[in-house]
């Protein structure tokens, strides 16, 4: 995400078009735990706390660490935050703490945290990183709260413990498997919304999680495919609707061999690679001609 983007543009890109749950399929298991609005709110708050603390520490102190040490550090920081949150929850609502303790634990190794820290936090300024983290957290929390609300409403006819639809309840929606179904339909709605109102983000919704260098100063490999792939994807292009290929990354974000980790089946990909190679060869030929002629 380039710098100097407004907050609204970041929101459109990172929270909506590249929603961490619906498009990037990160932290799906914690969303499956949100059976009620109360649990969803608790997990959202817990996630935000862990996320902001980890990304701040990564941005300020971990930019030059080895990648695997950073991965361990993210888990360690997340664990300490989870411990604090669980102790606070036990004091406020012991029953809720018993039911959600396992899921708060899982947030310590959330893929969203690692993705953001490896892709953004260690590469940009603190302000940029914080803005990006805010929009990503909003994208996650929105889906989490929505799913939790829908599940509680449909399975118990209640919202935050208050009965709204008496004598109504479908036991199916109390089961975690129903979350996947909901996420599927929500993802479809998101795709319809983007295709209709956000044409510039059609490619983002259809695809990929791009790789990123670990350190800002680290040069990308010569054969790395540029993030936009040079491929032109039309809004109604069938090739844009391939299953996103989350390549080598989570929780350790970087794969320096970008070529090997690109998927084979997406039709736009080989064309983009050929384009990159052709343009490089053309450039070399041009340079040779220019300097040899001179």
């Amino acid at each position, binding site marked *: 995400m380039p710098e100097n983007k407004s907050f609204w543009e970041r929101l459109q890109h990172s929270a909506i078009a590249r929603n961490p749950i619906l498009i990037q399929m990160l932290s799906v298991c914690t969303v499956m735990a949100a059976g009620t609005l109360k649990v969803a709110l608790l997990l959202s708050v817990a996630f935000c706390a862990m996320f902001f603390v980890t990304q701040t520490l990564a941005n300020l102190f971990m930019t030059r660490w080895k990648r695997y040490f950073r991965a361990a550090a993210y888990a360690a920081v997340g664990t300490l935050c989870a411990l604090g949150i669980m102790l606070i929850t036990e004091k406020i609502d012991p029953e809720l703490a018993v039911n959600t303790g396992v899921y708060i634990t899982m947030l310590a190794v959330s893929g969203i945290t690692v993705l953001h820290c490896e892709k953004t936090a260690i590469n940009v300024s603190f302000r940029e990183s914080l803005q990006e983290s805010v929009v990503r957290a909003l994208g996650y929390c929105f889906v989490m709260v929505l799913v939790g609300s829908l599940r509680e409403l449909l399975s118990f006819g209640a919202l935050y413990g208050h009965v709204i639809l008496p004598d109504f309840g479908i036991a199916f929606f109390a089961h975690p498997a129903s979350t996947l179904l909901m996420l599927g339909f929500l993802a479809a709605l998101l795709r319809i919304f983007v295709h209709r109102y956000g044409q510039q983000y059609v490619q983002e919704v259809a695809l990929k999680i791009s790789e990123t260098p670990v350190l800002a100063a680290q040069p990308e490999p010569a054969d790395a495919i540029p993030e936009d792939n040079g491929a032109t994807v039309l809004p109604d292009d069938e090739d844009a609707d391939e299953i996103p290929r989350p390549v080598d*990354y989570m929780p350790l974000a970087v794969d320096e061999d970008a070529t090997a980790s690109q998927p084979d089946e997406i039709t736009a990909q080989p064309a983009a690679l050929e384009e990159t190679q052709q343009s490089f060869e053309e450039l070399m030929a041009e340079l040779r001609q220019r300097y040899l002629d001179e």
Partner: protein
Amino acid sequence: MSAITEMIFIALYTVFIQNLVFTGGFGMGEALRIATKPRRFLIFAGLLTGFSALDTLVCAALYTIPALDALPTAYQLPINACVLLVLFLLVVLTVTIITKRRPMDKFLSTIGMAALNTLVFILPFLGRRSAFGLGGALAFGFGAGVAFLLALAVLRLGVNRIMESKAEIPHAFRGTPALFIYSALFSLAMVGLVGETLFA
């Protein structure tokens, strides 16, 4: 029942009856993402199985110490995390020392993904709740890893099928929506296998 038989029973139960990925959603995100990467399939699943078995075994061994066993659940979290992080760093250092080559960075990334994921992280908690002994914890961890491999295989088959029949899928449902719905249907199938009632 002998110890070996019990371990086999626990492992089979964890793989087929109480598949943590499909029935509980643990590691589902990782499974969905890795299922689209055929090259890393077996290596990742093998590493995850190793980490899950080791992690649950070591944690179960630690909790035989009365002082640790008496700790509240919240305080067991950092202990489990420390065990996992130590295991992860030991494996990374071992690989780094043995290979001494930069190209192993990709393999180290795979190790990180296999070790630091929600399924492996949560197994010691679930093992303690089930009051497994050392043998049971080992079988439970191993079974969870194999269950993850099974989930990967099933999801990979689904990915292939979705890719092949892309033209038949409505435009809005192509990509992640189809994958989510496929996972949901398979989860429901696993839940039905266990015998749970979904529509009471």
